[in-house]
């Protein structure tokens, strides 16, 4: 199957649409926002379900605590703010009141990564996956386009337990068919191949698909695995692919330290150690710029995946 651009949409709008539908379908779903309703695309939910929506002001710690409390009484709270303020600002609150307490809270985080753009490094969190995956019991999901984000938003409402859902700001290609099955914790093999496994998450999945096309032209047959659920990691899918290809490139909009790449390297080191390359931000803060300029500058484009693939194949 060949993936086509269906349209260009922001993943956060997939979240907004999914949340709004959840509001209609599931009375238990409530939402909280820390003075960023528009940015999080929560307007439709907030306006249609005012009794189930909580504006908490610029007080993210209080928001997480409130969300934990709302589960006591049977609600399914979705919190919304930028990724940095969803994680790094409130890690201890998530840790104690959500993860350790086993509460059914969905932490929904927009503007993750450098594609947030002009606001710069204080807002461009590249460490949130590292933080959230280190929390026992936390499910960590980073969907790749509008459709998958909407699917994920709806899926996590049905899953009982803490979830971190990460998405982004800019309009990007939508290419996942809206009816493609989405299952938490199940990797999706988007393209089969034999020479190298490209494992990508979030905005990098589209780059990986393009990279696979570019590699094809060079006579390299790449397998593209979409890991939308970083934790729990679909180890079986990863190992199955790696056993076939014998080498891996991971791709993510995150610091190379602590992210998906290291999760995969840890898994492989314990099972089948094979050569790996990681396409990720190389332990640096972001900066202001347009999303695409930054993807280019920090080496997160399809061509970087191609280079990494060529390099890793040689190391087999």
């Amino acid at each position, binding site marked *: 199957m060949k993936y086509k651009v269906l349209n260009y949409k922001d993943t956060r709008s997939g979240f907004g649409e999914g949340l709004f539908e959840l509001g209609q379908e599931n009375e238990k779903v409530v939402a909280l926002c820390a003075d960023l309703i528009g940015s999080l695309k929560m307007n439709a939910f907030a306006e249609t379900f005012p009794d189930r929506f909580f504006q908490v002001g610029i007080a993210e710690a209080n928001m997480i605590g*409130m969300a934990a409390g709302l589960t006591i009484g049977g609600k399914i709270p979705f919190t919304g703010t930028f990724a940095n303020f969803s994680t790094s600002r409130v890690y201890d609150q998530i840790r104690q009141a959500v993860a350790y307490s086993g509460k059914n809270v969905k932490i929904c985080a927009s503007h993750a990564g450098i594609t947030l753009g002009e606001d710069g490094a204080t807002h461009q969190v590249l460490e949130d996956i590292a933080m959230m995956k280190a929390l026992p019991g936390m499910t960590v999901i980073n969907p790749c386009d509008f459709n998958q984000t909407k699917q994920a938003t709806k899926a996590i409402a049905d899953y009982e337990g803490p979830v971190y859902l990460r998405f982004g700001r800019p309009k990007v290609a939508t290419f996942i068919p809206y009816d493609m099955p989405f299952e938490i914790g199940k990797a999706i093999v988007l393209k089969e191949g034999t020479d190298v496994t490209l494992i990508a998450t979030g905005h990098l999945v589209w780059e990986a698909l393009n990279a696979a096309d570019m590699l094809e032209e060079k006579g390299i047959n790449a397998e593209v695995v979409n890991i939308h659920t970083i934790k729990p990691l679909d180890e079986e899918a990863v190992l199955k692919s790696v056993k076939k290809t014998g080498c891996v490139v991971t791709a993510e909009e995150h610091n190379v330290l602590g992210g998906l790449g290291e999760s995969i390297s840890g898994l492989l080191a314990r099972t089948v150690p094979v050569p790996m390359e990681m396409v990720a931000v190389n332990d640096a803060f972001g900066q202001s710029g347009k999303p695409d300029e930054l993807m280019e500058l920090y080496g997160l484009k399809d061509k970087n995946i191609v280079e990494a693939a060529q390099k890793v194949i040689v190391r087999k």
Partner: protein
Amino acid sequence: MADQLAKKCTFASITKQKKSKIMATIDELKEIASQVRRDIIRMVHGAASGHPGGSLSAADYLVALYFESMQHTPEPFDMDGINQDIFILSNGHISPAYYSVLARSGYFPVSELATFRQLHTRLQGHPATMEKLPGIRIASGSLGQGLSVAIGVSRAKKINGDNKLVYCLMGDGELDEGQPWEAMAYCGGNKVNNIIAAVDYNHKQIDGDTDDVMPLLDLKAKIEAFGWDVLECNGNDMEAVVSTLQIAKEHTGKEKPVMILLHTQMGMGVDFMMGTHKWHGAAPSDEQAEKALAQLKETLGDY
């Protein structure tokens, strides 16, 4: 005897009470508080770790809540607590007081108090939900988070049309944290009217007097400026606590959230633990435990 008294007290609050009835109950409550204090000493001594100071200062309030003011069903324990009053402990280090009151009011066997802080216990050093100890609805221990959780519970009750109340206790040192002020701003700004919060105002924290470590200044004025009604009472006088809780209840359902400043003494009930911060988080030796227990009447039978 423990179970009978516990039962009686638990349900005493459900029926409307006459003045004479209250007076009788106050004596019973004092008796329970004495036993709770014994439990605290014995638990902390048994574990050779834990926090007796704040547990002793807050004991009377917790007893008043669980045995008099709150409407709650210890068994079967239901996490959601629909149509029950719900208590959230923010200053989790006073777990010995909390566990004792929960056990004595029927949430779990009193004998389990002996497992406090032991490997595999349900009575973790700080309250936890993972081991499913009945009565605990949220973990605490990292300070400053409880009032936020209480607000969430209160909002769920509003949505559910459940007109029971949410109680929350915080330490005074805990108010150094910013998060309680975020939560207070939320309650004051949004006229949350089904929460009764309280502060164990014992003027002590780990490193010393609150006035030395981080002066709280006019705490009442601060909280009032955040939009709350503030009540004050001697938090170690059972009658004052019970009647202040009654007044607090009358403040609910109106325009403002209500906070009780419980003027207490750290270490209350054990002479050598009072007037100092040293017993915030220190366990007594065998000899000290004995000396402490000699000052606390055994009223419901030790575990």
